[in-house]
Structure formats: C-alpha cells, structure tokens
C-alpha cells in the first residue's frame, strides 16, 4: 500500500496522465467536430445507399484499435502517403488514430439520437412552417444531452484503448507513453505498483466523467423533460 501511494506521488506518473488526457481529448474534439454534423446529416438526409452507410457506421463502432493503428501506421510511415508529415511516433499520430477509432461511435450514436427526435418532430415543425436549417438546429438543440452521451462514449473508448496508440505512438518514454501503454509495459516488466496506480487513475477519470454526464443528464431531464 505504501509503495502504491508513493507511486501516485511520482511526477512521471502525472506527466503520463496529462499526455493521455491531451491525446484522447484532442481526438474527441476532432471526432465530435466531424461526427456530430455527419451523424445529423445522415439522420435527416435521404440519399441512395443511406441504409448501407448506416450499417457501415454501426459496424465501424466495433473497429479493432490495432487494425486502426496498423492502417494509420502504414499511412504515416516513411514510405506511406502521409510519410512526409513526419508524424509517426508523435502524439499527433496518436490523436489521428484515436480520432479515426471514435469517429464512427460519435457519428452513429448521434445519428440515432437525431433520427429518433426528427421522426417525432418532423410533422409538428413542418406544420409550424419550420423547415431546413432552422428545423435541424431545433432538433439538435433538443437532443443536446444525448449528443453529450455520444461524445462521452467516444472519450471512454479513446482513453481506454491501447492497441492503436501503442502502434502509432511507439510507447516512447516521455514522448508518446500514455496510461494504457504504460500499464501494458510495466505489467510485462513486473512493476505492478506503477501499473496498478495508473489503472486506478484511469478508472477514476472514466468514473468521474461518466458520473458528471449522468448528473448533467438527470438535471436536464428534470429541467427540460
């Protein structure tokens, strides 16, 4: 126990925590920026192949992180199409991989939320003469708390995955080492207190975020119905 507590006081551990949060939050930011409008557009749009897009999007929610890591690795490696950016084994590459990983989650969940609301609101809004962008904004505003849940699901996935960041980040000490890759490494090295300490911090962060989201949604439910 004493060993465990002393681990929590190491500055190195907190550097790792901060980098993990920076990477995952950036990825969530980018994925939300693209995923929310994409989900909303698929929800209200009518175009050929729409069903196929929805099936694909739902399937991509289960994208294996190592496969995404491999694809981004190939993309960013010297010989790859984006090799000249020199991003491989940097936090930038990790953000990119996680963005790709969670984009389908955010897009698919927001698509569902917007589509359900749209089905309910459509006739009433048209009856009031509200159409197009204004109708879309009204619906988006009304499902904003469901969208928050979609974004949090993405964050949960990003902060918990190890495969993608391991491959494209390389788990370089002080540069690309994050919580999950450290836990994997330290466990295999036999340094269980550090691995355990990080594990506790990771679970703590995820718990706090979800509790916050839950309370916010509850409060919103009471306030707005």
């Amino acid at each position, binding site marked *: 126990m004493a060993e465990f507590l002393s681990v929590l006081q190491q500055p190195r551990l907190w550097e790792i925590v901060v980098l993990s949060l920076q990477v995952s939050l950036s990825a969530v930011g980018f994925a939300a920026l693209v995923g929310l409008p994409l989900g909303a557009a698929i929800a209200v749009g009518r175009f050929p192949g729409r069903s196929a897009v929805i099936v694909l999007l739902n399937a991509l929610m289960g994208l294996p992180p190592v496969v995404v890591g491999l694809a981004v690795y190939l993309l960013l490696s010297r010989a790859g199409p984006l090799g000249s950016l020199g991003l491989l084994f940097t936090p930038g590459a990790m953000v990119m991989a996680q963005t790709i990983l969670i984009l389908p989650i955010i897009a698919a969940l927001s698509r569902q939320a917007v589509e359900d609301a749209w089905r309910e609101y459509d006739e009433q809004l048209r009856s009031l*003469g509200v159409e197009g962008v204004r109708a879309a904004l009204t619906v988006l505003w009304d499902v904003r708390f469901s969208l928050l849940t979609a974004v949090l699901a993405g964050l949960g996935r990003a902060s918990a995955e190890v495969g993608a960041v391991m491959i494209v980040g390389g788990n370089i000490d002080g540069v690309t080492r994050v919580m999950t890759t450290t836990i994997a490494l330290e466990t295999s090295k036999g340094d269980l207190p550090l691995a355990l300490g990080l594990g506790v911090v990771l679970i703590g962060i995820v718990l706090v975020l979800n509790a916050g989201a839950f309370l916010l949604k509850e409060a919103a439910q009471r306030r707005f119905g």
Partner: protein
Amino acid sequence: MILSLKLEAVSFLNIIQPLTLEIEAGPSTIILGANGAGKSVLMRLMHGLIAPTSGAVLWNGSDVRRKQAMVFQRPVMLRRSALANVVYALEAAGERDAQPTAMAALKEVGLAHLAHRPARVLSGGEQQRLALARAWALHPEVLFLDEPTASLDPSATREIEAVIRAFDASGTKVVMATHNLGQARRLGDEVLFIHQGRLVERAPVERFFKQPGSPEAAAFIKGELPWD
C-alpha cells in the same frame, strides 16, 4: 381569407380514393370514420404535410401555411418551457413581440400557472391544451385537429372541447377528425363520413345522425362497423 379549400380528385396511394370536395369558412367540419378509414391521411393532405398521389389541394390566397394550424393526436413538445413552446411557434411565424401573445394564449387554455414548467413533464391533457394554446396564439384561419382527445380521460376531454369551442366562437374554422360519435355531435356542424378511403356522405350533423344517407354510415352510428 384562404378558404375555401378545394380538393380536386385528390388521392393518396390506396388509402384515399380520388375525392373531390370543398371546405368553406364557417361551420365546424367533422371528419368521421372508423380507425383506418383514412381520416388522418385526409387531414394531412389538406394541411399540406403530405402531397397527394394525384389531384390537387387548392387554397384560395397566399401565405397559406401561416394561416392554418394543426393539433395532433399526440402533442409534440420541444424540450423547453410551456411558454417557450408557444413563443417558438410565434417566432417561427414571424411574430416579433411574442411573449405577451404567448402568455395570453396560455391564459386562454388555463395553463398560465404552468407557463414556466418544462412542457414535456406536463400531463397528457395539459400537453394537449398547450398544443391548442400554441395554435391559438397563431390566430389561424383554419384549425385542423386529428383526434385530439383520443388518448385523454373524460375530464381532460371536456377541457379540450371547451377550448375547441372557443376557437369556433373566435371565428376559426375547425376541421376535426374523430371516431367519437358524441364528440362529433357536441362539436360539429357538418359531418364528412369517410369509409375505406372514400367520402361516403356529407351532411349537417343533425341529419347525419337522424337519417344517415348510406348503409355504411347507418352501420357506423349503430356501432356495427362494417370491416369487409
């Protein structure tokens, strides 16, 4: 004036068979028929929510959307206060100083004390009255009601009917779909009887109930719904 409303050989898939009729200003019109007869679809065709498969729906005049309102069987409320729901409708209609008008509408339906409550936590009857307040605020020339009391208890139904009468008294043309004979008698001046997507009969309420002109209507009134 956007009335009268003319339907010329309007059909919709196989739900509404080609149908021609004219709805004039004045008397309250009840669209009566069994479940699945096509009442709701007919009303949506009139209100312009769906386009006819063939034929034409013709209003007389311009700014047609703004001058009609519809209240649905299940009210759809936005996630905001009761008052804000009415204000939203007014602003969508281009009204600038919407707040006082919205408040007056809530008073009219007896919901002023719930103005700041979230609309979605109101009871079914209250939500339906709120839907009527939203329509009231717009001062529509025509109000379409699609079985507005179908899922309400008797006391909530009475309150809704009182508001519908107020619409009628204020000069709004009421067009209401119902399968409730009592309600048709209480609120209607004339009946359009729909059976299997066809307009079978059109008559003043009194005559319709005393001397129905078709066997289908007679059976419906007696409670023997012909299903074949």
